Every structure is written in C-alpha cells, then in structure tokens.
C-alpha cells in the first residue's frame, strides 16, 4: 500500500475529535464459543490528557468503553492500560490520567449461536480531556470493531 492510500485509510479509521482519536481496531476472527480479543488504539493529542478509567477524584469523568449488547460477540470486558500519575497546575494532588498513544484491549466470546460471516460490534467510548490550564466537555464517540465468525 502506498503512503497516500495508507494515510487515507488511517484518516478514515480515526474516529473522534476533542483531543482524542480512536484508530483502526485489530482483526477479530474466531469460531463459535471461542474467546477473542481486540486491541483498539487510542491517541491523545500532545499537551492534553484524559482522565483514566479510575480517576483520583470523584468529580472527574473516567474514560470508559462500553459495547452495545447483541451481535456475534458477547462479553466485552475492557483491559485499560496502567494510568500515569501526573501533577497539573490546577491541583495539589497528582491525577490518574492517560496521555499519548495507548491501547484498549477488549475481550469477547464468539456467541454460540453467532451466524458465520462478518459482523460489526459497536461500542461507545466516553472521555473527558484537559490540558494544563483548562478542561473540555466530555465526549462520547462510537467505536466499531469488525469481526468474522468462522
């Protein structure tokens, strides 16, 4: 694949705005009842952070990925990366955040009655971003994971 098509492909897969983007998920394929997992790349803009899935303060909105029920994949437990503790101008205590590029790993089981063939599992990623001086409204973006039941 040439540089331009690869770039277009990446752009077409990148979902989200508001200082965070979601890249193309890895390939998911499996037989009925099989356990499968997928890596979903997430990119946070330089100079920004998003609260981790376990923020240090109650009032902060955690990053959370939830998949809609139904379809050929069931479950959807998310393994979040280890957050970093960062100190910002607006707080005395360090905050539990994600910055830069990281992956969300999602574990599914192929449903016992899943029809063979392709499908798409859809979820929602909610997050809230800040920089060192300001915070931005929480966003929810759709995350689509294509899969193949063998």
């Amino acid at each position, binding site marked *: 694949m040439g540089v331009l098509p690869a770039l277009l492909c990446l752009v077409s897969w990148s979902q989200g705005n508001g200082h965070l983007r979601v890249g193309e998920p890895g390939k998911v394929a499996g037989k009925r009842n099989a356990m499968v997992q997928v890596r979903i790349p997430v990119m946070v803009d330089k100079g920004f952070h998003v609260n981790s899935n376990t923020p240090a303060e109650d009032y902060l909105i955690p990053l959370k990925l939830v998949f809609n029920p139904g379809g050929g994949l069931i479950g959807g437990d998310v393994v979040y990366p280890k957050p970093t503790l960062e100190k910002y101008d*607006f707080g005395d205590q360090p905050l539990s955040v994600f910055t830069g590029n990281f992956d969300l790993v999602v574990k599914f089981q192929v449903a016992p009655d899943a029809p063979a063939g392709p499908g798409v599992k859809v979820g929602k990623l909610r997050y809230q971003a*800040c920089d060192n001086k300001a*915070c931005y409204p929480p966003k929810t973006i759709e995350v689509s994971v294509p899969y193949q039941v063998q």
Partner: protein
Amino acid sequence: MPASRFPALIAAILVVAGCLLTADCSSETVKAASVKPDSERKQAPEFALKDADGKLVHLSDYRGKVVLLDFWATWCGPCKIEIPWFMDMQRKNKDRGFEVLGVSMDDEGWEVVKPFLADLQVNYRVVIGNDATAQLYGGVDALPTTFLIDRGGKIAAVHVGLASRRDFEDGIEELLQAPTGGGITRAAVSGQLVAR
C-alpha cells in the same frame, strides 16, 4: 522648615502610612493588563437562564454592576481552583457594585450542580448554561472561561483556562474604580436567549 508646616507634614505621613498598612488607599489606581480599553470593548450578549430556584436571570439584571461571568462545570479541575477565589471576591466587593455570576455547563444540570454548590458553600448566583449561550460568548469550549463585564455591560476582559487570582482582582478593581457607565439596557443588546 518652618514649624507651621509640621502639622501638614505629619498629616501627609499619616495618610501614606495608613494607605500602606491597610492597602486601602482610595486614590490608588489599579491597572490590570488583561482589561481592554473602553473603546475596544463589545457589549456582552444578553441571556436569560434559570438559577437554582428556577428564577429566570437576565444578564441585564446586573445593569450598573461589574460582573464576573464564569463558565464552569463540576467535572473541571481548574474551575474548582478558581471558584473559592470568586467566593472571596464576591464577599469583599459585593457592596461596591460587584457580582459573580456562574454559568454551569454541566449537561446533567442541577442534579449534579446543586450538591456541588452546597459542598463548596458557593455564595454567588449560578445558572445552568446551554450551547446557545456558549455560542453567544464565542463558543465557549475550554473551561473555565471567565468574562469581566464593566458597569456598562461591555466585556472588558476574557480569561480562557485557569488564570491568576491577581489578574482577576486587578481587573475587578480597575472596573470598580472606573467612572460609572450607562448600564446594560435590554433594548441595546441583541441575541436574547431564554433558558431551556
């Protein structure tokens, strides 16, 4: 020095000492770097939003006062730093024609805002904002975003993100010391909004 001048000299020394000790020298003129000259200020857009008691609050209700208009949200860390400053400023300047007006941008509304205000014992009025209000003020996205509005209802300063307390205090002082303007008139402003 003639003895007759001593009383005047002593009086002058006492005045200066008093000013230095109390930091309340009425002749002191504060000039805040962030405050625009009067000729560059634009009218603050009018809005009507509901407060915690369900009462409709118009910006024009504050005609003749210096207003600190703070767009904030409960999930915003930098906002939590500034709110106690604003409470102090409200306490110190309320009797001088100054008011803080908070505009919460929480989508969940009073359900999350009321407990937050109670927890911090916020002493100024807060209304729930909406996207339309934010658009009127330039599409407020980053929080906190704070506007200092002069007695004539014009935007004298804007702070996007966490600013320094001193900037706010100097700006408020400069606007309070300025000659009284004409006040906000509802007829003079455009783009009125009614709370959702």
